[in-house]
Each structure stands twice: as structure tokens, then as C-alpha cells.
């Protein structure tokens, strides 16, 4: 039994008769029935925490960590003094915080349970793995369903497992960095994640190892009234390089869904981490994510972040440049359609001399969609030779679309260079007329204009992802004119 919502698009199917009867109106809008052996029930209390810790077999320090985090979560107010009041519509009692079928992640695709396999088949995971990935992890609700790393990469000493396996098998590395980049009390949602986290990736790349192909994780929400709280920790040791990519989808439910991840990156001396996100949440998902990296001397942390869909996304990837000549970069694309609010941005904290940060943000507002940019650049007085460049460009598709920019640049001392540029443009009626005069439909004309607007950023994406991104934009545009 599967949901069969209003349909406009038929997806290609991999097996003849399994899902060909389903038609969907967006890429990820389908569900399979829940088969959860473990369900923490609705709401979040001390008991929920113990339930999760029991099911996962947490060591004591993690159980304690969770309990402390719960207190912080309960004590912290919603940040509505600066953020949208829509946060008040999140009813924490109406979510389930842990769901799983109790199975261990499979190393072989054939062993993955049928429903889960069909889900990821439809989302194209196995083909992508064969084609260009060094490793894949696929998370279904709270736990990883599939996890695989190519032998050649594993032989180099690269660790790529889910967070549970990471903390059990590699406690000495895990414990050293876990919760150090983003402390529990960073914000209300990082505290919530710290209390109930499950899944997410743990990656360690040994000194000097450059992982040639990207590692990928795929996050899928299947169940209604559920919160997904993955926790990812990536450590690139001295001189190591790694690219990690994540994709996210969820079906459209009547009720709200919560996704609140915490992602911590650690780039040791001379290391390089690139973290690429393409998310396509359905329009009922509250997506409240904390992402931050530390870049040590001569290291580089780069966030490439693409946000499509969701009801509300709040996400400001950050880099703390802790060592000399460290570099931080955030490249982000946000697309807000009617009923959606993309509140995104970047945080750049310069904590050493000669550090460089770059923020390029492009947002697109369609219909009554709202895009907000919040940026923070901090350069303290005692440093010298720090550079920041911030560019944020907004594109409005309709007169009702809305965009806001809130840059906060605090630069002290006079031995630094910062520049900030912002622009707002609109797809004009004459531009659409010109394109349509050449035979493009209105949706095609919009789509081409939007793709043009973000074209220079899309070049930063791996090819497969830029193709996917273009397809997602086409879908959004088809639905927005009529």
C-alpha cells in the first residue's frame, strides 16, 4: 500500500511491476507502510531518552550526554526574538523521536529490506554509487539501512560508518571531537539533536589520504509525525582531503515533520573538507539544522549548500578559522516557493591571522515564497591580515515574492579587508516575453532564467548533482505557473 497523491509526473522505474502504478507530483512524494520494531512514541521526556539509549545500546557517557542535552533543550526558549514566529507552530509533543525496524545496516544492496530498497532505487542511489561514489550510506527514518564503502578507500584507512557504529567502534577518535565544534547549548535545536540523535555519518580520513571520489549519505523520512535527528562528524587528519555529499527527501504528509541535524567538521592542519548538500524536503518539513566546521592551520572547509523545499529551513553553515591561513567558504542556493521560507546564511569566525573567508549566497523567491539571508562575519581586533568577501544576490520571480538580507559584519582592527555586495533582481515580464517569443513555455522560460541566475554556483557542484538540481528547479517551476 502506498500513497497516491495528485499526479503530474511519472518516474522511471527500475523493476517492471513494483511501483509503476504510483504517480507522484514531486521527486520524493511517496511512502511505504511503517514496519517499526522500535518506536519511542510521541513527545520527548527523560523516558524517551532512556528508550533511545537502551535500543541503541549507548555507552554511559552518551546516555548522560543525552540527558544533559534534554535539560538544555527544555530550558532554552525558542529564538523567536530574531527568528520567525512560525517556530511556535512546532508541537514537540506531536512528534515521534525514534523509529526503526531494528535491523542492522546492510553492506550489500540485495539484503536491504524490499520497501527501503525500492525507496532508494527510485531516488537513484544504487546507480549513483556504481557510477561515481566512493561510499554510500542510506538512512531511513532513524537508522541507516545501507552502508557501504569501496574496498580501495577502506584500505587507505578511511572510516565511513554511521554515528552509532562510529562511537562504538572508534571511541578514541569519536569522543575527542563529538560535540566540540557545536556544543549542546549552541541553540535549542542543537540541544534537541544532542538529546535524541540517531544515524548520520562518522568519517575519519587518515593523514595525507585524499579520497578521490565523494562519499555520500542519503536521508529519507518515511514516517508521519516523525523527527529525524542525524548527527554527522567528519574528521580530515593532517593533509587529508574528502568530499561528502548528502541528499534529503521526505513525502508530503498532512502533518508537520521535523528534521534537525547537527553536522560537525574538523579539518586538521592542511586538510580540506567539502560538504555538499542538495535537499528537497516536502513543504511540511521544519528543517532546522546546525552545521559548523573548524579549520586548523592552512586547512579549508567548504560548504556547498542547496536548499529546495521545506516549510521552514533555518541553516547557517559556519567555519571557525582557528589556524593561520585557514580558509572558509559557504556557497549557498536557496529556492523558496509559495508556503516556504528559506532562512539561510553563513557564519564566518576568524580566529587566527591571515585567514580568508568567502560567502556567496543566491536565493530565488517564487510566488509568495520568502528567502532570508543572515550572515555573520567576525574578525576580532587582535588579528591581522584577515579577509572576507560576502556576496548575496536575490532573484524575485513574482511581485509577491519576498527577500530580506541581514548581514552582521563585525570587524575590529584595521589590518583586514572585507567586502560585502548584495543585489536584488527580478525576472522581468520582458525577459519572459523574449524567451517565450523563441518558443519556450512560461515555465521553461522561468526555469531557464533561474538556472541562469545560479549558473556560476552550480558549476561548483559535482556533475550528477548539478543535473539533479536543474531537474528539481524545472519541477518547482512547472508547479508555480499555470
Amino acid at each position: 500500500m502506498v500513497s497516491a497523491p495528485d499526479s503530474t509526473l511519472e518516474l522511471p522505474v527500475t523493476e517492471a511491476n513494483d511501483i509503476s502504478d504510483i504517480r507522484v507530483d514531486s521527486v520524493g512524494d511517496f511512502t511505504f507502510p511503517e514496519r517499526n520494531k522500535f518506536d519511542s512514541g510521541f513527545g520527548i521526556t527523560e523516558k524517551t531518552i532512556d528508550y533511545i539509549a537502551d535500543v541503541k545500546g549507548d555507552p554511559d557517557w552518551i546516555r548522560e550526554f543525552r540527558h544533559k542535552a534534554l535539560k538544555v533543550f527544555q530550558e532554552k526558549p525558542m529564538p523567536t526574538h530574531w527568528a520567525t514566529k512560525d517556530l511556535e507552530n512546532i508541537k514537540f509533543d506531536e512528534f515521534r523521536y525514534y523509529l526503526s525496524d531494528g535491523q542492522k545496516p546492510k553492506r550489500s544492496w540485495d539484503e536491504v529490506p524490499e520497501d527501503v530498497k525500492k525507496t532508494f532505487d527510485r531516488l537513484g542511489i544504487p546507480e549513483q554509487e556504481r557510477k561515481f561514489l566512493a561510499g554510500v550510506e542510506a538512512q531511513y527514518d532513524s537508522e541507516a539501512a545501507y552502508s557501504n564503502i569501496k574496498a580501495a578507500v577502506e584500505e587507505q584507512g578511511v572510516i565511513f560508518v554511521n554515528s552509532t557504529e562510529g562511537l562504538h567502534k572508534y571511541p578514541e577518535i569519536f569522543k575527542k571531537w563529538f560535540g566540540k565544534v557545536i556544543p549542546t547549548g549552541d541553540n535549542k535545536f542543537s540541544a534537541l539533536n544532542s538529546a535524541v540523535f540517531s544515524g548520520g555519518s562518522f568519517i575519519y580520513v587518515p593523514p595525507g589520504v585524499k579520497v578521490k571520489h565523494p562519499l555520500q549519505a542519503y536521508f529519507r523520512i518515511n514516517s508521519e509525525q516523525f523527527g529525524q535527528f542525524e548527527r554527522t562528524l567528519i574528521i580530515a587528519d593532517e593533509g587529508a582531503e574528502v568530499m561528502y555529499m548528502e541528499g534529503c527527501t521526505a513525502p508530503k504528509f498532512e502533518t508537520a515533520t521535523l528534521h534537525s541535524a547537527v553536522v560537525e567538521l574538523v579539518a586538521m592542519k592542511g586538510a580540506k573538507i567539502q560538504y555538499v548538500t542538495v535537499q528537497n524536503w516536502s513543504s511540511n518539513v521544519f528543517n532546522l539544522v546546525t552545521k559548523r566546521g573548524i579549520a586548523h592551520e592552512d586547512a579549508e572547509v567548504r560548504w556547498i549548500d542547496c536548499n529546495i523545499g521545506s516549510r521552514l529551513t533555518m541553516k547557517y553553515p559556519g567555519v571557525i578559522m582557528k589556524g593561520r591561513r585557514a580558509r572558509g567558504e559557504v556557497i549557498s542556493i536557496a529556492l523558496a516557493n509559495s508556503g516556504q521560507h528559506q532562512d539561510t546564511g553563513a557564519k564566518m569566525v576568524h580566529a587566527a591571522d591571515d585567514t580568508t573567508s568567502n560567502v556567496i549566497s543566491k536565493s530565488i523567491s517564487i510566488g509568495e515564497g520568502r528567502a532570508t539571508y543572515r550572515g555573520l562575519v567576525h574578525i576580532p581586533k587582535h588579528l591581522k591580515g584577515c579577509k572576507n568577501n560576502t556576496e548575496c544576490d536575490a532573484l524575485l520571480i513574482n511581485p509577491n515574492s519576498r527577500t530580506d538580507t541581514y548581514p552582521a559584519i563585525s570587524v575590529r582592527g584595521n589590518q583586514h579587508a572585507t567586502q560585502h555586495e548584495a543585489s536584488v533582481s527580478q525576472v522581468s515580464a520582458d525577459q519572459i516575453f523574449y524567451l517565450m517569443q523563441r518558443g519556450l513555455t512560461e515555465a521553461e522560460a522561468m526555469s531557464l532564467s533561474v538556472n541562469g541566475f545560479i549558473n556560476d554556483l552550480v558549476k561548483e557542484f559535482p556533475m550528477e548533482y548539478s543535473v539533479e538540481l536543474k531537474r528539481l528547479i524545472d519541477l518547482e517551476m512547472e508547479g508555480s505557473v499555470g
Partner: protein
Amino acid sequence: MSLEIKDLHAQIPGREILKGLNLIIKPGEVHAIMGPNGSGKSTLSKVLCGHEDYEVTSGEVLLDGENILDMAVDARSRAGLFLAFQYPHEIPGVSNANFLRAALKARLPKGEDIDAVKFYKQLYARMDQLEMDRSFTSRSVNEGFSGGEKKRNEILQLMMLEPKYAILDETDSGLDIDALKIVSRGVNAMRSENRGFLVITHYQRLLNYIQPDIVHVLKDGRIVKTGGKELSLELEERGYDWVTEEPLAAAA
């Protein structure tokens, strides 16, 4: 077979601009429309293509017998109507090649794509005819182009899309003599028995290079005089003031 405009009336809110315009363009013919500023020349081109700023209050436009006034802008284009814009729009981030591919693909059944090798072969051949550097394929549509480059780019699109009827709206404006020659050469290369042209211009100069079969004078929203190409020379010499409406001209 023809592009037939019958008693066309069009307005912007509060002001009628086209006041009963009649014109028949047959495949193989090149018609020129000349007229003073504000006579309705550019309005005519936009109304024919379906620009939303103008409301057609009465009349018909038949493209090979089919009334196109109820058709959307893009459908008119795919039916075979092309407008070379007086002020071509810039499309930031979209390369010329991708734009042309998208426009050609829009003419194919859904799901089909164009043959890339054939496409580039044709594109390069056309660009050579217009003396356009190959680098134009990867540059964003019209962005940072000089006035002359933009006009050449319009003709390139015309050559790639091969419409049944092409309207050139003041294609000569902003062109120096060399560019004018190149653009005209491109247009002349596209003249054929199967294609009709409507060349809108303020000046006679363009018509030295694109020789029209028929010349019309547009004044106050109506065609007031029709003649051969010698009419354009007369207009050049005497201006527009002497032309008064000849009732029979509409039937030409």
C-alpha cells in the same frame, strides 16, 4: 498561405494605437513598414507576437489560415512567427548555445532532444555567415554584447529557428555600416520562397541592403500608403508629412 492582418485594432489602457490595420504577407515576399515615430510600428510587432501590454479590441491575424490571436506567445513562435527585437533582452547565466538548444527543443515532441553534433555544425556555419566569433556560443545571451552584436545575435536566432514569417523591428538601429552589411547579408541568406518578412524601419538606409518587394507607410495606426521600393526613397527625400491616407491602399 500567408500572414494576414485584418482590420486590427489594439490599445494600451486608455489609448488606441492600431486603428484598423490591414496587411497580407505572402511567403517569398519582403514587406517594409516605414513610418514616423509613434505611428505604431513597434506596437504592431509586439501585438503580432502577443505581448501582454497590448489589448486587441478587434480584428484578426491569420497565420496560414489559423487565427493566432488566441494563442500564447510561445505557441505563436512555434507556429512559425519570429520577432527580431529592437532591444534584445539579456539573459544572465544562460549561454547562447543553451538558449538556442532550448528553443529548438521546444519545437520537438516532449521527451525528444536535438542532435548535438548536427546542432553545433549548423550553429557554427550560421555564425560564420554572420562573422561571429565562436566564443559567442558560451557567452550569456546578449549580456555585455555591443548593440551590433545583439542585432547579429537576433539574426543568428532567426537563422537557427527558420521561421515561416519573420518580423525585424528596427534591426538597423544602432548599427554602423559594416554591421548593417553583415546583418543584411544574414537576412538575405534567409530569404526564400517559403518565408515572408516584415521589415520595420524608420530609415531608408536598411532597405538599400534588404531590398523590399513592397513598402508601406504606417501613420497613426493605419497603413496610409503602399508602393514599391521606390516609395522608400521618396520617403527618405521628402519625409513623412506629405503622405496622406489613400483609402484604397488598405486593399493592396
